[in-house]
């Protein structure tokens, strides 16, 4: 999504996010990443300083926060993005800078790393091979008593790699983790943002 992304030409309008929208955003993040609490998120996005929303193309929103710098004018640092009504995903720099911030995470095996760095989607075997990891299925039951998969279809996840400390991509699940384990074929996660892409190279807008 960000493979060819240049903030000077691809970003169109910027608007300050209304407080109510910001609240909605936060609750959406908390809902999809249950390990992140409201307090932590408030610290990350203070209520006082408003988020700035940039439009990238027709369907992509980039949420930035103001960064005060000494001796120069404040600039906007991208922290989250959202495509259409998809999940809200963090920018990788943000994930790197706050290692205690625990988004829903999966791990891919070593062999997948170079492909991911090139921007390929994650194929199922990358998650099921030894070295790959996904949250366990069936830990919880839904209201009807069915097992809830570790990660549902359409959920946004941050992708780590076997043996590496830092995240290397984030994307959207195209199957639930249960399906991935069962079918073990085809695209498991669609990558939206990976190391070395245009968004990663953008420090400020």
């Amino acid at each position, binding site marked *: 999504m960000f493979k060819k992304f240049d903030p000077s030409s691809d970003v169109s309008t910027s608007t300050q996010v209304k407080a109510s929208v910001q609240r909605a955003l936060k609750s959406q993040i908390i809902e999809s990443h249950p390990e992140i609490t409201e307090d932590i998120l408030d610290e990350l996005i203070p209520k006082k300083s408003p988020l700035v929303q940039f439009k990238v193309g027709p369907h992509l929103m980039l949420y930035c926060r103001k960064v005060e710098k000494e001796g120069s004018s404040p600039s906007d640092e991208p922290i989250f993005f959202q495509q259409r009504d998809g999940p809200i995903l963090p920018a990788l720099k943000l994930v790197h800078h706050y*290692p205690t911030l625990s988004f829903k995470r999966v791990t891919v095996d070593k062999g997948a790393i170079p492909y991911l760095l090139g921007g390929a989607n994650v194929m199922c075997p990358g998650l099921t091979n030894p070295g790959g990891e996904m949250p366990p299925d069936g830990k919880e039951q839904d209201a009807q008593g069915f097992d809830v998969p570790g990660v549902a279809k359409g959920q946004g996840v941050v992708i780590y790699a076997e043996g590496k400390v830092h995240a290397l991509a984030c994307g959207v699940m195209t199957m639930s983790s249960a399906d991935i384990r069962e079918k073990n074929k085809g695209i498991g996660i669609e990558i939206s943002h990976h190391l*070395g892409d245009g968004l990663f190279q953008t420090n400020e807008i």
Partner: protein
Amino acid sequence: MLERQEMIYCGACGMPPEYCEWGPDYETHCLPWLKKHHSALFEELAEKRGTPAASAGDAKDEKPVKQRPEAPWTTEQRLMEFYKQYEPNKLDNVPGLLEKYAGKEDKLFQALTKKYGPEPDDPYYDDSEDEEEDDEEELEEDMANVTLSAADKKKRRGAGAKKKKKGDGSGPRVVVQKRAQNKRRILTVIMGMETVEDVKLKDVSKAFSKRFAGSSSVKDGVPGPSGKSAKEIIIQGDHLYDVAEMIVDKFGVPDTAVFLDIDGDVVPLR
């Protein structure tokens, strides 16, 4: 609670160092950079990667210690080294080969590299090569200086009219001014932006209107005495300081070249 961790990104490729190895210039740029700036992390990563990388790192350590031979290899030595590396059991053939190819050694080595691979490096040339590289770098720097000064000249020519009026000699000179449109409506006017290299006034104006969410336009200002028209950028609203800082940050104008016009007094920005 939430802790911000400073990240180290590779100075050569911009990736976190643990992902450098998939980049294009891993051995030539990333490794040396990491070793120079974060040696602790370098060792940690080398250990993680296991022996091959560690030994590669060690080899680099040894290199400066290695003694430089007195003279470059003779043809015979060169051939010996070649066979030592690729086909040790044919070492005995060397003298025979030399005789056979006497006078056309070039062809021999060409054929050998074609068959086996690149020639082993002569340690005699190791250091001298490095020196050459340094020279090249210096040369490049010199070249950059030359082109820069040439650019300066061009700049001076473009902004001649304005310069003469202000009595200032060289380089860009940008003046930011407030102008009242009405009693309460204020415009911010930037003059001399055309003296800055490599920017288009229209783009600059667009950037301002984006940043300050207001109208911004390029207008012809009062022409200087030599008849050369001076352009000015007019932004709606009072953004005197913000504009000045943005000119410095975004368009790379040295802050000594940016001036604020405060009620008729032209003062430098910093």
